[in-house]
């Protein structure tokens, strides 16, 4: 079976009973031996004495009469006993009969009987001496005692055997049977112990009843737990479904930003590369994978933990070349554990953000050329000027007016005019630096605001470059190409003024001067106009 041999009750019981019985049997055997030995010794001595006593009357007569024949008879009678080594019968004066050699006998081995006259009790007539074989007596006594001990031992072992049999059949087998029956019953299977008819009224019967009662209650508990678990599982399944399928990204992070749980939407929004870093063996914190927004998120999380109120922030993250905007709702989660946990619900708001952005761009740019419109451009310049008040920076404000633009419009139509404008705009954008500002100032007027870095850029060179850009042929369609000229006036900040409007005015004036000068073919402006004619080649 499944219990180690010596751990079985039956084996231990048998062992213990045998041990105790052996000890008791040994002790009692010892005591019995001693007692039997003494009793046997005493018994033998007494019966020997009685034997002598029985013949002492005859012995007395023999010694009274000095009757040798009678004395012989008495002595032979006594000596016939094998416990007697030697016998002597004597009168007061002489030995009248003897058997064996009594002279070698020790005094303590002698039994002496005084013989009195059968007729006058007070008259001593002789003595009977018996040399007892005490060694033999002891041997007999020992043998008797040994026999006794053997009997006791046999008796003890028979008793032990019977007790063991009874224990086996009435207790151990019954318990084993019960154990075997109980062992194969698994709780919740509906199996019960069969009641054994023999034990209905005893402890085993009671035990069976109680075990079945216990099994009932266990089964009831198991059933209840099963149904509860099923409910919980169903609930969990539903919640998991919501969690998995919701469009909002949901994640639990600890106060240090380490990810505990997240749903697929979260993974999708945060991006697979970031997800790898968050879930790799050497986990990274959410704080460290969101580019420039680390501090924003960290602050938001600590605020949420501190205030116990939801905190929302918008995070800008870069996904390749795109910018994704994530709206995060951060809430502290009440948890049993000591580590504070926050829930982050994110929504991708890139689309809205991008729409807002494009609306803003639309509001700022000239729809045809993509250059800044007048209002937005002025604001940009103004903000640059505001930042440059105390710096040793020079800006050039150039006002460009296209010559003969109107005739092109009139001759080739608006589309051609538009094309001229867009082509030029593209050329300008391509050739100016990114922080220079280009504004479509009017119909055919363009304003360029350029930083002159510590005078290393010559304004005349700039104007020359611009003129070169402008006079490059512009393809209207496959058949037509136009060449256009422009008048460019300029003003220098801070040389010609600090105020934007003043600078614009001065540049404007300069431009008009050039224009009129060009028309009069004079050359008196600050800026030279090299090429003002319109080439209308086909």
């Amino acid at each position, binding site marked *: 079976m499944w219990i180690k041999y010596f751990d079985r009750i039956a084996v231990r019981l048998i062992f213990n009973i045998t041990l105790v019985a052996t000890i008791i049997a040994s002790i009692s055997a010892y005591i019995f031996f001693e007692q039997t030995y003494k009793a046997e010794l005493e018994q033998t001595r007494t019966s020997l004495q009685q034997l002598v006593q029985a013949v002492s009357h005859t012995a007395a007569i023999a010694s009274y*009469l000095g009757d040798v024949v009678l004395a012989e008879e008495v002595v032979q009678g006594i000596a016939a006993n094998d416990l007697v080594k030697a016998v002597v019968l004597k009168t007061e004066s002489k030995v009248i009969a003897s058997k064996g050699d009594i002279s070698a006998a020790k005094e303590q081995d002698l039994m002496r009987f005084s013989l009195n006259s059968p007729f006058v009790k007070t008259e001593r007539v002789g003595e009977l001496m018996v040399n007892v074989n005490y060694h033999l007596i002891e041997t007999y006594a020992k043998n008797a005692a040994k026999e006794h001990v053997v009997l006791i031992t046999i008796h003890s072992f028979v008793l032990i055997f019977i007790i063991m049999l009874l224990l086996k059949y009435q207790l151990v087998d019954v318990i084993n049977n019960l154990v075997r029956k109980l062992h194969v019953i698994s709780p919740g299977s509906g199996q019960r112990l069969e009641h054994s008819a023999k034990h209905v009224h005893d402890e085993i019967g009671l035990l069976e009843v109680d075990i079945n009662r216990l099994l009932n209650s266990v089964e009831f508990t198991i059933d209840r737990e099963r149904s509860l678990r099923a409910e919980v599982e169903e609930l969990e399944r539903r919640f998991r479904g919501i969690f998995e399928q919701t469009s909002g990204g949901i994640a639990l992070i600890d106060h240090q930003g380490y990810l505990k749980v997240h749903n697929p939407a979260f993974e999708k929004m945060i991006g697979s590369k970031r997800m790898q870093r968050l879930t790799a063996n050497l986990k990274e914190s959410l704080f460290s994978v969101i580019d420039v927004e680390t501090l924003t998120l960290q602050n938001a999380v600590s605020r949420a933990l501190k205030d116990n109120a939801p905190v929302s922030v918008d995070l800008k993250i870069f996904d390749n070349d795109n910018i994704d905007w994530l709206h995060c709702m951060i809430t502290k989660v009440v948890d049993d554990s000591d580590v504070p946990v926050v829930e982050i619900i994110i929504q991708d708001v890139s689309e809205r953000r991008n729409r807002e952005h494009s609306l803003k761009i639309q509001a700022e740019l000239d729809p045809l050329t993509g250059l800044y419109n007048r209002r937005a451009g002025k604001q940009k310049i103004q903000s640059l000027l505001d930042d440059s008040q105390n710096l040793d920076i020079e800006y050039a404000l150039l006002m460009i007016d296209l010559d003969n633009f109107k005739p092109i419009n009139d001759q080739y139509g608006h589309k051609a005019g538009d094309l001229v404008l867009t082509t030029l705009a593209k050329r300008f954008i391509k050739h100016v630096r990114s922080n220079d500002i280009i504004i479509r100032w009017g119909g055919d007027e363009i304003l360029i605001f350029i930083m002159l870095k510590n005078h290393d850029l010559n304004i005349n060179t700039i104007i020359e470059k611009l003129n070169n850009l402008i006079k490059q042929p512009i393809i209207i369609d496959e058949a037509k190409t136009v060449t256009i000229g422009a008048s460019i006036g300029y003003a220098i900040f801070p040389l010609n003024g600090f105020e934007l409007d003043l600078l614009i005015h001065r540049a404007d004036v300069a431009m008009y001067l050039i224009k009129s000068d060009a028309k009069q073919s004079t050359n008196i402006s600050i800026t030279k106009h090299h090429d003002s004619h319109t080439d209308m080649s086909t």
Partner: protein
Amino acid sequence: MACNSGSLVAEVVVIANKDNLVKLLTKKQVIDIYMGRTSLFPDGQAALPIDQETDSPIRKLFYRSLVNKTVNEINAYWARLIFSGRATPPQTIDSAQSIIEFIKDNKAAIAYIRKEELTDDVKVVTNVD
């Protein structure tokens, strides 16, 4: 003692031949002669004890007085000694007259009779009481 009751009824005397040199015998000497321990008088003469008839009251009285035993016990005593031959029981003679006659003729003889049956033909050596 039984002798006391005996003395009320009768007194037993031990008698011998008038010529016997023995004047007086002790009780022990009488016992030894009658129980066969000795066949001689103290002076060395042979002694021949005579018994009364087996069932006679005088015999009964004599042994009761002498050794405090019944006649049966005395008979058993002698029966035990039959085969050893060392001692023999006293010779029996029927009546007091016959006994007195026998003693008159026999110098070694010794006997017992009632005191009232005593004659001058014999002499008393012991009063048994």
